[in-house]
């Protein structure tokens, strides 16, 4: 399946380009748009891994919802271009964080036992996901709802604070 591999590299290139765009764009809205590209690229990678459900979730939640959230958040602020690199006293800490993160990622990539060809990837149907979610993982699932509610209430409290001013 060479063309699948070729497709993977193309998609990966697009994703990485999107990710690079996010950090290099001088305009925050452009950054957000690059982010969509990167997120959709990830969705395409999920498809290559035969994780249909996950890919669609990625599109629905990240492509639609999170993007709009970010765009609205950007538009809440005074949108303007940033000239020159952002600099500040926290530069060494940033460097440290970046190094640690990179190290972890490299470690993870090299240490994982990869399953092999995409062909052999197990296809998990949505029914199986449902079964797992509501029997084995019932508790985390309920906790997720609490998390969502907390996020909701938090946003409302913040918003009301904002409006109170």
């Amino acid at each position, binding site marked *: 399946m060479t063309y699948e591999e070729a497709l993977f590299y193309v998609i990966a290139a697009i994703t990485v380009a999107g990710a690079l765009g996010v950090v290099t*764009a*001088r*305009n925050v809205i*452009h950054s957000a748009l690059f982010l969509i590209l990167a997120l959709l690229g990830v969705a395409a990678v999920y498809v290559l891994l035969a994780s249909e459900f996950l890919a669609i979730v990625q599109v629905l939640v990240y492509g639609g919802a999170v993007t709009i959230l970010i765009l609205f958040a950007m538009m809440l*602020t*005074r*949108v*303007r*271009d940033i*000239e020159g690199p952002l600099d500040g006293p926290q530069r060494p800490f940033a460097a440290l964080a970046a190094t640690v993160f990179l190290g972890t990622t490299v470690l993870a990539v090299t240490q994982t036992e990869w399953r092999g060809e995409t062909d052999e990837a197990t296809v998990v149907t949505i029914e199986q996901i449902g079964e797992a979610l509501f029997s084995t993982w019932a508790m985390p699932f309920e906790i997720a709802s609490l998390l969502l509610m907390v996020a909701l209430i938090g946003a409302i409290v913040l918003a009301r604070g904002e409006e109170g001013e």
Partner: protein
Amino acid sequence: MATTDYTIPGEPDLETVDININVGPQHPATHGVFRMVLTVDGELVTDVDPVIGYMHRGNEKLPENCDYRQVIGYHDRTDYLAQFNTEQCFVEAVEKLTGIKPTERSEYIRVILVELNRIMSHLMFIGAFSTDVGIFGTSFMYAFRDREYVQDFFEEITGERMMYNYFRPGGLAWDVPDNFRERCKQVLGHINSGLKDLEGMIVDNEIVLARCRGLSRVSTKDAINWGLTGPLLRATGLEYDLRKAEPYSIYDRFEFEIPTGKDGDVYDRVIIRLEEMKQSVRIVEQALAGLPGGPIMAEGMKRTLRVPEGEVYMRVEGPRGEYGVYIVGTGTDKPYRHKVRGASFCNLSALRAMSIGNYLSDVIIILGSIDIVLCEVDR
């Protein structure tokens, strides 16, 4: 990457800034070339700055160089939706000043035409207003369909579809055609069936109710203080109509009601206009029944009308409210001073107070509900 900096020097960096939006002069919702500068915070309008004058043509000053017959044509163009009403006002003003008594027949014909004109104007209002509320041109088309019948009828009488120039001090320019009665009844039939369509579209429609009820409530006291007249004043519940309060022409001979609202909100203004159309139909029917024969021009009219020295203020109930004409005569054939009180102009002055604090969409509706005619505002 574009490298534009959107910050404005001297502005604090993290403060929400309201947007200023031009609505008009070239906007689908500002009837005519009216312009308002809205200050918008999100969707809420925090300030309205109406800008008028784009239509100013010197309609008050020009007639001071015209003789009295020529002025009638300019009055058509003052309120181009209620031409007969304005003509009537001016003609009656001249009659009042000179003491001419118009003939019976011409008075009846005037009332018929004026009331039909009122219907025409209100039809226009309903059409334009429902477009503002967002009906995709449907009520507009229905209203114009029925307006067309009236306009055809007027064209058969006067020869013009809009700028009639038909009333004259002392009577009418010429007599109505022989089939006047039948045609008038036909037109009334069209209007009655058209009104059903418009009511079906607007009255009781949940979305219209949700949009218009309680919007820009005005109390009677405020309305009087603002100088509001016409449907805007009557919507607040005050039964004030010049046709009844200060009967001019032959209005005291007809039976009709003055529809009033309760809340003074946009919905009431619309319903009142719908109701007024029905009352106008009633008046036309009565006038048609009592239409006498006889001459259409008063006896002894001179070729050139010279108005004696003196001044007069005549006001009539136009579709938009009180339309007044103030004339100072000096014994010549031209008015020395000619002043027009436009109802739209006075009603428009309340726009700012009525709109502030409402949604952007609602300001459009409020403006629509005032029913301005820019030619009358700017003159």
